[in-house]
């Protein structure tokens, strides 16, 4: 019945590069945890909330700790895929900032412990782009071909919806269509839809303006001081990634020990220093070596934060509508282009078929003629 008798291994499933791994002279968090508790960590990574969801949904593997984003947590809760936590085993929960408790996705603080939080804003290159205050900048034709856009529907739609003044959590089809139209209108201006390529492209001024996460801006800014960050006036996404325990977990106590450890100051500080994202743990923000400018963006004032909106989980129907609208935007349903391809493909196939048919027909005819000749000769 003691903790020691239980198999001392937990499976942790986290985003890639989302934990301090001992590089840059920081704490190796997982190793420190093992050292402190004797519990081994099987650590693996995913690249998006959706792949995490797929992996969980498919089944066949049991994870003890996962770290989805807010809207995904709500979805997982509504589908009964998370276990309630025993906060008695997570004493460090006390050090989580109050503003990260009683959230929309977990109103009663039953399922999750915040890991990081962050904001989405607009990063732009001050050399080429005038001071940005609004989402409208992403639709500014002056920057045509130098605009990057999110390569996932939720963030992309949110940007359009905020620009239109629509609720980012709307499930209304006409709202979604309006957002999609705006995105479609933006498409000719967009250089490409990207995620992590933002770093390279912004740092090297390959692109001039892009919506992205505030924490990542700090990294880019250190490489290229020309870059600036803006919290758009219409509002912006404020997200929280939080640690949860899925129902498939078989080792809940150890998982809670892990969550507790992650809330400890040392671990949280190391992670925050490594990733650059906002730590919800009290005191961590102050301990980081940040310039004033950086701090203002990574840990903005409450006034700014009050404009932040969280994503809520959307209904299945709304998700499907959004996905298919997004696909339409991405694939450019403008008929001319696909008709061209269809005609080209068909032409190639038909020419080949006609040529082959002609050849074999000719062969057959000649053979028949020869046979007839031979018969005649006889």
């Amino acid at each position, binding site marked *: 019945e003691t903790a020691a008798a239980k198999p001392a291994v937990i499976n942790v499933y986290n985003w890639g590069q989302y934990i301090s791994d001992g590089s840059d002279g920081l704490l190796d968090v997982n190793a420190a945890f093992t050292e402190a508790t004797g519990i081994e960590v099987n650590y693996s990574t995913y690249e998006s909330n959706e792949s995490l969801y797929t992996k969980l949904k498919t089944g066949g593997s049991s994870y003890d700790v996962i770290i989805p984003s807010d809207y995904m947590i709500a979805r997982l809760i509504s589908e009964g895929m998370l276990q309630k936590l025993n906060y008695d085993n997570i004493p460090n929960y006390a050090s989580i900032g109050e503003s990260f408790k009683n959230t929309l996705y977990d109103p009663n603080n039953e399922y999750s412990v915040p890991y990081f939080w962050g904001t989405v804003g607009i990063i732009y290159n001050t050399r080429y782009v005038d001071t940005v205050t609004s989402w409208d900048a992403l639709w500014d034709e002056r920057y045509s071909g130098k605009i990057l856009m999110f390569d996932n529907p939720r963030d992309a739609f949110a940007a359009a919806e905020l620009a239109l003044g629509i609720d980012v959590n709307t499930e209304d089809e006409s709202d979604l269509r309006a957002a999609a139209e705006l995105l479609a209108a933006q498409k000719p201006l967009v250089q490409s839809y990207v995620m992590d390529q933002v770093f390279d492209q912004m740092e090297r001024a390959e692109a001039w303006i892009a919506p992205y996460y505030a924490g990542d801006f700090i990294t880019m800014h250190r490489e290229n001081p020309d870059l600036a960050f803006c919290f758009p006036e219409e509002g912006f996404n404020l997200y929280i990634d939080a640690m949860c325990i899925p129902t498939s977990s078989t080792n809940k106590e150890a998982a809670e020990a892990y969550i507790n450890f992650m809330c400890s100051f040392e671990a949280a500080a190391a992670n925050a220093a490594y990733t650059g994202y906002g730590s919800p743990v009290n005191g961590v923000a102050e301990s980081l070596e940040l310039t004033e400018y950086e701090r203002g963006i990574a840990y903005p004032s409450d006034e700014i934060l009050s404009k932040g909106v969280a994503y809520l989980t959307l209904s299945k129907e709304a998700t499907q509508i959004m996905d298919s609208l997004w696909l339409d935007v991405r694939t450019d349903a403008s008929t001319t282009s696909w008709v061209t391809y269809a005609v080209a493909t068909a032409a190639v196939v038909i020419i080949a078929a006609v040529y082959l048919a002609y050849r074999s027909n000719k062969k057959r005819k*000649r*053979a028949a003629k*020869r046979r007839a*000749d*031979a018969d005649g000769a006889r």
Partner: protein
Amino acid sequence: MAKELIRLEDCVVRFDDEVILDSVNLKINDGEFLTLLGPSGCGKTTTLRIIGGFLEPTSGNVYFDGVRINHIPSHKRKINTIFQRYALFPHLNVFDNIAFGLRVAKVKEDEIDERVAEMLKLVSLRGFEERKITALSGGQQQRVAIARALINKPKVLLLDEPLGALDMRLRKDMQNELKRIQKQLGITFIYVTHDQEEALAMSDTVVVMDKGVIQQIGTPQDVYNEPKNAFVADFIGESNILDGVMLSDKLVLMFGRKFKCVDKGFAANEPVDVVIRPEDVDIVPADSRHLCGTVTGVTFKGLHYDIIVDFYGFKWLIQTTDYHEVGSYIGIDIHPEEIHIMKKSAYSGMFGDYSSYSEEYDEINDPSIVYGEDPGEEEYYES
């Protein structure tokens, strides 16, 4: 007919410093059926490839109709080849294989139809036009290869062991067919084989080669009856090859006995090789007037029996249609014309020894046997 068409002059071929052809001189007349005969690896294919234009000799000249053609590529020579393994195009059917050369020459389809039909008749393959090459038997493939080469009306046809893959019966039939075609069309054939019977049966001229060197050139009768050295004698049919000494013109000493012969022009007492063909030996009752020996082996060969006779420890092969028991004591009789005298050569002593035929394998090496124990008893054996 006697007009010279192709001449090889001092042709030498080296691969990696190894001499493959050594100073080959060869003249081929228009309309001739010339055969290159020799054991495997002797350079027959190499010679043919020089003529066909697939290989330039390392040194030496090749003339065609008096023009030097060393550098003329094969597709510009009026010479066609039937390859050792036919080299038919597997992606084409019989008709298209035969029509290949004409299509390359951009002949009109109508004419192609006509000429292919003609060729198919010539090689008795009408009705096979649409067949895949892979669905033909060896003999049929052979005939397609012939038709494919002949349709281009070459002045010279090169044939590289075209019958090697066929079985005995088919080979005989194809030999006749090839000979017939050659006569009918009057084309020069240069034919490669390692089968001496084939060479003798088909050719006007036989060129015997070994180790990259031409050993003898002559008509089949010449080569068979008057071999120039032990290699030729042995390669062209079975031979008993004996050491002899030329006592004077028309008189040779073997086994310490004197035999009449018809050859002359050797130095007195010159050591020579003496060839006696197994079928030229007549068996007679044993008596003192003849060389006598004991039969030590008999093999039935269909046409005849191979008989091994021991004369004072040296074993002869004799071919006869009459059966003689092992152990019987017989005499032999050889016409002076059947005794062929050859100069000694590098090949002397290497061939013409039938000792391995008998069970008493080691006896030949018995030093106690002295040849010609009873010399001078008679001047010579009469024929």
